């Protein structure tokens, strides 16, 4: 038996199509201008990237504000190039980790470590590598910069995608299998949509984080080589060197404009659109909105032009993944034996890698150096912890206060997120000017710079947590006359409620501060160098001296510190929050 009802729907659709005029409307025009403008900038920018390296010296960074739009476009282009790489990396690596137990064994710990080590320290190595890859061409330096940004973006995105794949709702998975979706269809219909909300959020976080690195990676000095790529980062470094306060201000304004532009034109619309991928079966109470998304939805002409393309895209034959069917090992003993063998191989490779690093470092450095570096690490650790405590004391009460007032929270939340995205390192030199003028001790007064950019994570997470305190809890508290003025209210209502959020924020802030220490412990302003003793300044000095073994040692030690801190402090707290304080 087949279904043969009259095809009413079909006819109705045709009539509706015919009635609707295809003339462009206002929304089309807005979008058209934006797209055309973007295209011009991208082609212009791409042309400069392929120039020979000597071109950089011919056209050095000029502090003429008229160049700023171009520089901003170049910088943004680099970030999106890195983002594209990160997405590709995410889809391939995270999928591999989720589908293969053997790959998972290697990828998950590797991601975990990579997302906590200070990527800024690697710049030395990657620049040398990429410049060797494209000798004499600007592309090499570009690739190094893009790679640096990529290393700031990719890990948490891959992690979030992996976690989504591991937590696919069981019934949807069964439905997909039962109706026989191919792996390709499964990816587009189930896996990618389910992972989208978390991935979008992590992508936004990654974009915020990468501003910090763009400033550091566009003007790189490795040993005798100094390269400045045209971009906002290089502009800033030149401006700082010359002590040109106005130029710094211009760059800051430009950056703000760029951040607001891509937030409004790209991320807000995506967040609004991604709301439909939330796996809950109920409509969200307060769906995210975006004016630009509304514009896109109202467009008349452009969708007509895009739809045929997507239809054509759908017609494309799905890539036929080679169907490798390994013979299923049904003997559990052999299967377990193979698992152990694989584990042994992985451990052997890890040991070999560790040994390679140690032998590289020990060629020029002694145990005494290692001890000294650990001492410096302890100094930086003390700074990070003290700063987190101070930032928490300041921002937790303020965050709770704001979070309890929905109107304020709505206004301040985006501002806090903007500050988190804003690369605080552009302001470092100006602060240094003050320190020099006041002859303050750099060992103390350089420290706050480390948390200048990352404290906002604490603030906006606490706001989110306080806003999520259930009403019945608040009512029960006020029934017993508990108010924010009493300590008991904080102990029983506020702190437990915001704790999981706070931990997320503090963890991010702590990781960011380690990274920031590399640029915050040594700062240049008008050819003056101010330095605080610590692991960050050790790595920075070794980098500018081109002393690779020292850089390797410094990064290695910092990685150990970060990982230990995560394992012994943040992860247990996280586990406690998830177990006990989850609402």
């Amino acid at each position, binding site marked *: *038996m*087949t279904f043969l009802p009259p095809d009413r729907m*079909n006819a109705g659709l045709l009539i509706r199509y015919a009635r609707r005029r295809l003339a462009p409307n206002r929304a089309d025009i807005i979008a058209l201008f934006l797209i055309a403008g973007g295209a011009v900038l991208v082609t212009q920018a791409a042309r400069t990237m392929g120039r020979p390296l000597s071109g950089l010296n011919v056209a050095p960074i000029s502090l003429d504000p008229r160049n700023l739009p171009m520089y901003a476009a170049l910088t943004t282009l680099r970030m999106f190039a890195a983002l594209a790489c990160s997405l590709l990396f995410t889809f391939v690596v995270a999928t591999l980790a989720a589908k293969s137990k053997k790959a998972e064994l290697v990828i998950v710990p590797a991601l975990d470590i990579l997302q906590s080590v200070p990527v800024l320290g690697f710049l030395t190595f990657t620049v040398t590598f990429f410049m060797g890859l494209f000798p004499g061409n600007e592309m090499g330096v570009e690739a190094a910069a893009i790679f640096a940004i990529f290393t700031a973006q990719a890990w948490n995105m891959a992690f979030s995608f992996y976690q989504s794949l591991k937590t696919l709702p069981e*019934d949807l998975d069964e439905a997909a299998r*039962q109706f026989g979706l191919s792996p390709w269809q499964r990816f587009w*219909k189930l896996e990618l*949509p389910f992972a989208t909300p978390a991935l979008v959020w992590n992508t936004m976080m990654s974009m915020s984080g990468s501003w910090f690195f763009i400033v550091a990676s566009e003007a790189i000095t490795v040993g005798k080589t100094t390269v400045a790529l045209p971009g906002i980062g290089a502009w800033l470094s030149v401006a700082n060197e010359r002590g040109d306060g106005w130029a710094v201000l211009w760059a800051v304004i430009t950056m703000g404009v760029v951040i607001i532009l891509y937030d409004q034109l790209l991320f807000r619309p995506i967040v609004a659109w991604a709301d439909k991928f939330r796996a809950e079966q109920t409509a969200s109470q307060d769906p995210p909105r975006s004016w630009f998304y509304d514009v896109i939805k109202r467009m008349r002409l452009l969708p007509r032009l895009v739809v045929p393309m997507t239809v054509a895209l759908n017609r494309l034959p799905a890539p036929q993944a080679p169907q490798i069917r390994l013979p299923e090992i049904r003997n*559990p003993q052999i299967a377990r034996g193979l698992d152990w063998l694989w584990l042994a191989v992985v451990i052997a490779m890890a040991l070999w890698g560790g040994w390679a690093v140690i032998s590289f470092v020990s060629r020029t450095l002694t145990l005494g150096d290692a001890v000294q570096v650990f001492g410096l690490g302890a100094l930086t650790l003390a700074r990070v912890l003290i700063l987190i405590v101070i930032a928490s004391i300041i921002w937790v009460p303020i965050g709770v206060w704001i979070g309890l007032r929905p109107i304020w929270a709505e206004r301040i939340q985006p501002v806090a997120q903007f500050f988190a995205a804003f690369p605080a390192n552009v302001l470092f030199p100006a602060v240094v000017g003050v320190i020099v003028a006041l002859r303050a001790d750099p060992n103390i007064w350089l420290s706050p710079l480390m948390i200048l950019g990352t404290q906002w994570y604490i603030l906006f997470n606490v706001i989110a947590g306080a806003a999520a305190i259930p009403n019945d809890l608040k009512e029960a508290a006020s029934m017993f006359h508990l108010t924010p003025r009493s300590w008991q209210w904080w102990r029983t209502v506020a702190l437990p409620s915001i704790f999981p959020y706070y931990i997320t924020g503090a963890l991010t802030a702590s990781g960011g501060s380690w990274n920031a220490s590399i640029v915050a412990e040594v700062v240049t302003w008008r050819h003056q160098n101010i330095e605080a003793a610590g692991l960050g300044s050790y790595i920075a000095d070794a980098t500018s001296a081109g002393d690779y073994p020292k850089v390797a040692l410094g990064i290695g030690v910092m990685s150990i510190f970060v990982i230990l801190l995560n394992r012994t402090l943040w992860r247990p707290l996280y586990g406690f929050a998830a177990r006990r304080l989850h609402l």
Partner: protein
Amino acid sequence: MPTTLAPAVADANLVEVRNVKHVYGKGGGGAGLLVLEDVDLTLRPNEIVGLLGRSGSGKSTLLRTISGLIRPTSGTVVVKDMPGDDTAHGVAMVFQSFALFPWLTVQQNVELGLEARGVPAEERRTRSLAAIDLIGLDGFENAYPKELSGGMRQRVGLARALVVQPSILLMDEPFSALDVLTAETLRTDLLDLWVEGRMPIRSILMVTHNIEEAVLMCDRILVFSSNPGRVIAEIKVDLPQPRKRLDPAFRALVDDIYARMTARTGREAARDGAFPGLGLGMALPRISTNTLAGMIEALAASPNDGKAELPTLANELMLEADELLPIAETLQLMRFAEIEGRTIRLTTAGRRYNVAEVDARKQLFAQQLLAYVPLAAHIRRVLDDRASRQAPARRFRDELEDFMSEDYAEETLDAVVTWGRYAEIFAFHDDSDRFSLDDPG
């Protein structure tokens, strides 16, 4: 449609399940939980067959085995097409939780299976719209699942399964996530479509734990025992459609099935037999002490006077068989009650518990718990033996996992923690995941 089948076709077997056994958990080591044992099933054209049993009876596992979602540990499952050139073939499944993709519209959800089979877009549209029409969702083609009520969502699930024209429709507790009224409407609509032959399917195999639902819809009911799941009875339902719940023959059949479902817990079986495993390895259900007390009080209350028929009691307490039986069996395990056939009767301990004050109740409960629940006695003994009067819960969890899967171990330990806390025979600290003897009072 029912009348047009040639005799040869009517006798064909659509599904043949032979000697299916399924073991969950630790692979190969023999420590896994036996879910299905020696199951045979034959599905012929033109019938609705119900798999009826309690949770843990493996009926859903069997359905998933037939759908190809899981492979049985041993045994064979053959799904055949109808003889001749019948357009319907294969199986399609309707899920308890609907399993709709929230980011796809109703129509896109319905087209899912067609797309997977590479049906061209135009034909997909025609067929999906027809299925949506058939199932009564006209006008909702562009809605997202979250905009629909539960009943409508399950209609989408039904359309999605029907549109691929399976010869067998598999339904996994399709109405149990719906409220009573919605479920009844959907059942009636489905039966109407079936009786009028408007669905492109040849047979329906449905899993349910609701006895009345099975009697209402099925031509044949296979009753499963639990732990391990076995077919303990096959019941033919000859009542003409549409069936009436208040019909005495209908009621008699429901009562009969009730008795069969509790039969294994009768006198001849060991008292502990209601739960899988023996001694320490007994898997216990997570049942609150309030529920147990409430059940004892209900049994002791005036019309019952300490003795009741289980079906009547279920009606009175508005519980499904699936919910009532674990409570009854826990009472039996602790000797607060005994079950015989479909009758449950309070023991002396049960009657004493009913009239006692709070503290006396706790003491009595502690006595019975230590005497008849081996795990509780074991934990207490370990704590008594240790100088520190403490023991990590991990240790008992590991012991349990030698007998059962991780999930069952967790549930069993949870049950004992709740009962032990109420009886005040030990304390449990969630933070440190330890048992101790310190007096919480």
